[in-house]
C-alpha cells in the first residue's frame, strides 16, 4: 500500500481557486446580462444603423414652360462617372487607368477619393460625354470600381435668354442649410439660387424618395429593404412668350440695360431682359471658380437683374406721374398754359429747359410731347413735394411691385420726412423743382415704370406683375388690379400726350406702321450736370436712356419699359429698342421709321 502525500494545504487552497473561477464566470454572466438584456434595445438599434443605409432618390425638378408650352428649362439625362474604392482590387492602378481614359488629372481623382465620406462612391466626373462613357464600358473588366450613373441635369436650352427671370440652380450653401425653408435638405442638395428657380424652389423640387438598403461591413449593398419613389416637381407655366423674349434680347444687341414687357390688363410679364446676362447652364454642374470670378468681378454686374434691381432716376418718364397728379389735383387744367423761355428762375436758382431757346407757350399735351421742363417745373411748384410723392406712390413707385422674383428693390420717392430721417437736413424748395422732372433723389426700377405705363394704358389700374401662370396645371391666384380712382379725363389727356410723343415728339423712333404707340422718353442723369460739361465723352457719365410705352394706344395689349445704359437720350438710345420689341410683338417688319420732321431736342 502506497503512503499518500499530505495534500491538505493543496486542498484548502484549491477551494480558493474554485471560488475565484466561479466568481469570474459569475461576473461575466452579469456583464452579458447587462449588455444583452438591460441594454439590448440600444445595441439592437446600433446594429440596425450599422446594416441599413438610406439612399436618397432625387426627384427631378419641375420644368419651366413659356405661355405657349415651349420649354424654357428642363432636365436632360447626364452621366456621372463614379468610383467606389471598396470595389477596386488595386486602387492605384485603377485610378491611373481611369485618369488616362477620361483624360483628367490623376491627382484630381486622388484628392476626391481622400475627401469622400467612408463607403460612399466618389463622383470622378460629372456630365461625361457619350464617347467617354463608351470608352469606360469597353474597359469594364479593367475598371471594376468604376460605375456610371444617369442623373437628371438642369438644362437651359435658351442659354442666357431670360436668364435673370428663370434663375439658376446650384449646390445648397452652408448658410442656406441653416434656414427653415431648406429644412430637411442635406449638403450637396441642388436648390434654386436665383430667379424663379429660387422663388419656386420648394414647388420645383418635388418630393425626394429614398431606398433603405442593407449593406455589409464594406458598405456594399446586399439588398433593398424599402423604397419610396420620388414625386417629380410640377412644371411651371410662365407668362413669358419665348418669341418676344428672343426679340427683346436681339433688340439690345450687346448693349447694357434692361427691358420688361407686360400685359397691361393682367400684369403678366411677356418678356424680361437684363444685359449683360450669363448662361445658367454654367452653374448646373458646379460652377468653375474662374467663371464665377469672371461673373462677380465684371463691372457690368451680369448676375444682377436690372429689371427689378436696377434703380435709375426716371427722368422725363416721371412727367407721366406729374401730369396725372397736376390734373387730378386741379393745379392745371388741359387748357392751362405756361410760357417757356428756356429756363425758370426760382428759389435763387436757374433751372434750365433742354431747349435753350425755349418752347414758348405750352399746354400739358404739348409739354408731354415736347418734354418741356419749364411747364413741369411750374406744375411741381404748385403741387409741392407731398402731393408729388403721394401720386408717385399711388402709381406704385417707391415700393416693390410684388413680382414673384426674389430680391426686388423698391427705388425711392423722396419726401421732407424721408430727408430729415435719413439725411438729417430739411427739404429745400429747389429740390421739388428737380423732382418734378424725375431727377434728384427720385429713383425707380424699369418694372415700376412699365407698371406706370400699364396703369395709363388700362384706365387707371395698378397691376401685380407676375411670371407664373400655373403650377403643375393649377392656375396661380393673383391679386386683381387695383383701381386707382383716377378721372377718365386725366387719363385721356396723359394718353393723348403720350401718343403725340411717338407721333410727332421725342419718341418718333418707336413709331410702327399700322399700330398706334403711346410712349414717353426720358434720360437719367448719372452724375451732376456740371461734371458732364467738363468731360462729355466719358461713357460713364453719359445719361441712361429711358423709353416707356404701350400699344395699341387705344386698346393696349402690351406695356413696356426700356432702359439702355449710357445711351444718351431716350429718344435716340431707348426708343429704337422699344420699336424692335413692339414690332416683333405685333408681327411687323423691323424697318426703322423715317424722321417726321421734328427735332430731336429733348428736355428729359
Amino acid at each position, binding site marked *: 500500500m502506497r503512503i499518500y502525500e499530505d495534500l491538505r494545504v*493543496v486542498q484548502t487552497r484549491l477551494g480558493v*481557486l474554485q471560488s475565484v*473561477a466561479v466568481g469570474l*464566470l459569475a461576473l461575466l454572466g452579469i456583464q452579458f446580462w447587462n*449588455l*444583452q438584456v438591460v441594454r*439590448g434595445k440600444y*445595441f439592437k438599434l*446600433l446594429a440596425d444603423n450599422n446594416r441599413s443605409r438610406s439612399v436618397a432618390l432625387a426627384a427631378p425638378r419641375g420644368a419651366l414652360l413659356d405661355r405657349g408650352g415651349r420649354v424654357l428649362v428642363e432636365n436632360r439625362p447626364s452621366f456621372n462617372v463614379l468610383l467606389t474604392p471598396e470595389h477596386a482590387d488595386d486602387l492605384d492602378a485603377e485610378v491611373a487607368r481611369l485618369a488616362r481614359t477620361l483624360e483628367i488629372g490623376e491627382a484630381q481623382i486622388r484628392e476626391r477619393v481622400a475627401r469622400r465620406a467612408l463607403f460612399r462612391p466618389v463622383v470622378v466626373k460629372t456630365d461625361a460625354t457619350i464617347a467617354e462613357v463608351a470608352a469606360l464600358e469597353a474597359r469594364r473588366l479593367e475598371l471594376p470600381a468604376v460605375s456610371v450613373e444617369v442623373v437628371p441635369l438642369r438644362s437651359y436650352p435658351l442659354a442666357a435668354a431670360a436668364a435673370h427671370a428663370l434663375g439658376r440652380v446650384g449646390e445648397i450653401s452652408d448658410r442656406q442649410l441653416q434656414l427653415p425653408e431648406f429644412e430637411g435638405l442635406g449638403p450637396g442638395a441642388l436648390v434654386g439660387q436665383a430667379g424663379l428657380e429660387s422663388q419656386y424652389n420648394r414647388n420645383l423640387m418635388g418630393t425626394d424618395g429614398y431606398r433603405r438598403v442593407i449593406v455589409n461591413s464594406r458598405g456594399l449593398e*446586399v439588398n433593398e429593404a424599402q423604397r419610396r419613389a420620388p414625386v417629380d416637381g410640377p412644371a411651371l407655366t410662365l407668362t413669358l412668350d419665348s418669341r418676344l423674349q428672343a426679340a427683346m434680347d436681339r433688340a439690345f444687341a450687346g448693349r447694357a440695360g434692361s427691358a420688361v414687357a407686360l400685359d397691361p390688363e393682367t400684369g403678366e410679364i411677356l418678356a424680361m431682359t437684363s444685359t449683360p446676362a450669363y448662361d445658367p447652364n454654367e452653374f448646373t454642374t458646379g460652377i468653375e471658380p474662374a467663371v464665377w470670378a469672371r461673373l462677380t468681378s465684371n463691372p457690368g454686374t451680369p448676375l444682377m437683374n436690372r429689371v427689378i434691381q436696377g434703380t435709375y432716376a426716371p427722368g422725363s418718364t416721371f412727367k407721366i406721374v406729374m401730369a396725372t397728379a397736376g390734373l387730378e389735383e386741379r393745379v392745371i387744367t388741359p387748357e392751362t398754359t405756361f410760357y417757356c423761355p428756356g429756363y425758370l428762375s426760382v428759389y435763387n436758382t436757374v433751372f434750365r429747359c433742354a431747349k435753350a431757346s425755349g418752347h414758348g407757350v405750352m399746354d400739358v399735351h404739348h409739354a408731354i410731347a415736347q418734354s418741356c421742363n419749364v411747364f413741369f417745373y411750374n406744375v411741381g411748384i404748385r403741387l409741392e413735394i407731398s402731393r408729388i410723392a403721394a401720386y408717385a406712390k399711388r402709381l406704385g413707385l417707391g415700393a416693390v411691385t410684388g413680382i414673384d422674383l426674389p430680391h426686388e428693390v423698391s427705388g425711392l420717392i423722396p419726401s421732407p420726412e424721408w430727408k430729415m430721417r435719413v439725411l438729417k437736413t430739411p427739404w429745400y424748395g429747389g429740390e421739388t423743382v428737380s423732382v418734378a422732372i424725375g431727377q434728384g433723389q427720385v429713383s425707380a426700377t424699369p418694372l415700376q415704370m412699365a407698371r406706370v405705363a400699364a396703369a395709363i394704358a388700362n384706365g387707371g389700374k395698378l397691376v401685380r406683375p407676375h411670371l407664373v401662370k400655373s403650377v403643375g396645371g393649377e392656375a396661380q391666384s393673383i391679386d386683381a388690379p387695383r383701381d386707382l380712382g383716377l378721372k377718365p379725363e386725366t387719363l385721356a389727356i396723359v394718353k393723348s400726350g403720350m401718343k403725340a410723343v411717338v407721333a410727332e415728339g421725342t419718341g418718333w423712333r418707336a413709331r410702327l406702321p399700322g399700330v398706334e404707340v403711346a410712349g414717353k422718353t426720358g434720360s437719367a442723369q448719372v452724375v451732376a450736370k456740371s461734371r458732364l460739361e467738363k468731360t462729355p465723352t466719358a461713357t460713364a457719365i453719359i445719361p441712361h436712356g429711358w423709353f416707356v410705352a404701350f400699344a395699341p394706344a387705344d386698346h393696349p395689349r402690351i406695356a413696356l419699359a426700356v432702359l439702355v445704359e449710357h445711351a444718351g437720350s431716350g429718344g435716340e438710345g431707348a426708343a429704337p429698342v422699344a420699336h424692335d420689341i413692339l414690332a416683333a410683338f405685333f408681327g411687323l417688319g423691323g424697318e426703322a421709321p423715317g424722321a417726321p420732321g421734328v427735332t430731336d431736342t429733348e428736355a428729359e
Partner: protein
Amino acid sequence: MIDRRLVFNLDWVFLGAVLLLAGIGVATIGSATQSGRLSGLYLKQIYIIGLGLLAMLVSLVIDYRRLADRAIVIYVASVLVLLYVLRFSPLIAGTRRWILVGSFQLQPSEFVKLAAALFVAKVFAESRHETIGLRDIAGPGAAVGFLAFLIARGPDLGTAACLAPLFLSVAFLAGLRMRAVAILLVVMLLVAGFACLKDYQKTRIYTFLDPSLDPQGAGYQKIQSQIAVGSGGLLGRGYKQGSQAQLGYLPARHTDFIFSVLAEEMGFLGVVTVLALYLLVIWRMLETALLARDRVGAFLAAAIAATFTFQVVYNMAMVAGLVPVKGLPLPLMSYGGSSILSSLLAVGLILNVRMRRFAN
C-alpha cells in the same frame, strides 16, 4: 498499458461537456463562415477535433507521472522550438508564431503551455516544504518567465500571458506565503501593463479606454463586438441571422470573436448555457486537482485549469468589451488547429490524472 479499471474511471461528464462545447463551436463557425472564401471551414474544424480526440486517447496511455519525469527534457525542447520559430518561421500577419507541418500551420506556443504546466507541476512537487517564499520560486519563475519571453517575442502576448496564472496558481497551491502571493499578483499586473507592449498594442489600450478615438481601427473591434453581443438580447437573433456576424461587421468572427457570434445569434440564454458548460469543465478540472493522488497530479491539473480558465475568462471579457483586444482564442470553440489540439491534449492530461487517482 491501460488498465481496464481505468476506463471506468474516465470522467465521462467532463468529456461530454468538452465535446458539447466543441460541437457548439463547430456550429457557430458554420454560421460565421457560411459565405465567402471561408465557407466550409467548420468541416476542417471537425477533422481537427477528430484528430485531437485521437491524440488525446493515445496520450491517456502514458501515465502523467512518466511525462512529468521528463519535464526538464520537454522544457528544453520547448525552448529550442520557440527559438527556431523566432529565427526561421515565416512572417504571417506581422508575427512569427507558426511552423509549417505539411500543409498545416502549427503554433508551437499553444503546446508550450502544456510543457510549462508539466514543468511547473514537476518542480513544485519536488519541494517538500510546508510553506515556500519568494526565494524558493525564483528559479522556476525565471524558467517559466523565459518561455513567456520567447513567446512574447513572437509577438504573441496573449499566449505568453497565459503562463502567469499557470505559474501563480501552482505556486499558490505549493504553499507560497500569502504576502508573497500578494506581491506576485501586483508585479504581474504591472508587467502585464506597459513594459513589453508594442505601439499598436498601446493604441489598442488607449482606444479601449475611449473607443470613439478610432472607430475604424483598434476600438472598432470592441465596439462591433459589443453591438453584436448586445443586439442578441435575451433570445438571440436566430442561428445564421445575426446581422453583425453575417454582414461582416465582426472582426475575426470565426476565431477570437466566435463568442460574439454565439451571443448575437443565441442571445443571453445561449451565453448562459455556454458559460455553464465552461464552468462545469473548469470545476471538473479543479476537482481533478483535488482528487489527484499526488502533488504532481494536483499541480498539473491545477496548472491546466488555471490556463484554461484564464483564456476563457479573458476571451469572453474581451468579447464583452471589458478588456483590451488580444489575440487569444476561446478554448474548444474558436476555429484553429493548434488551439483545438492543445485544448484536447490538456483535456487528456486532466483525464489522465483523474483516472489514475486510485492507481499505484
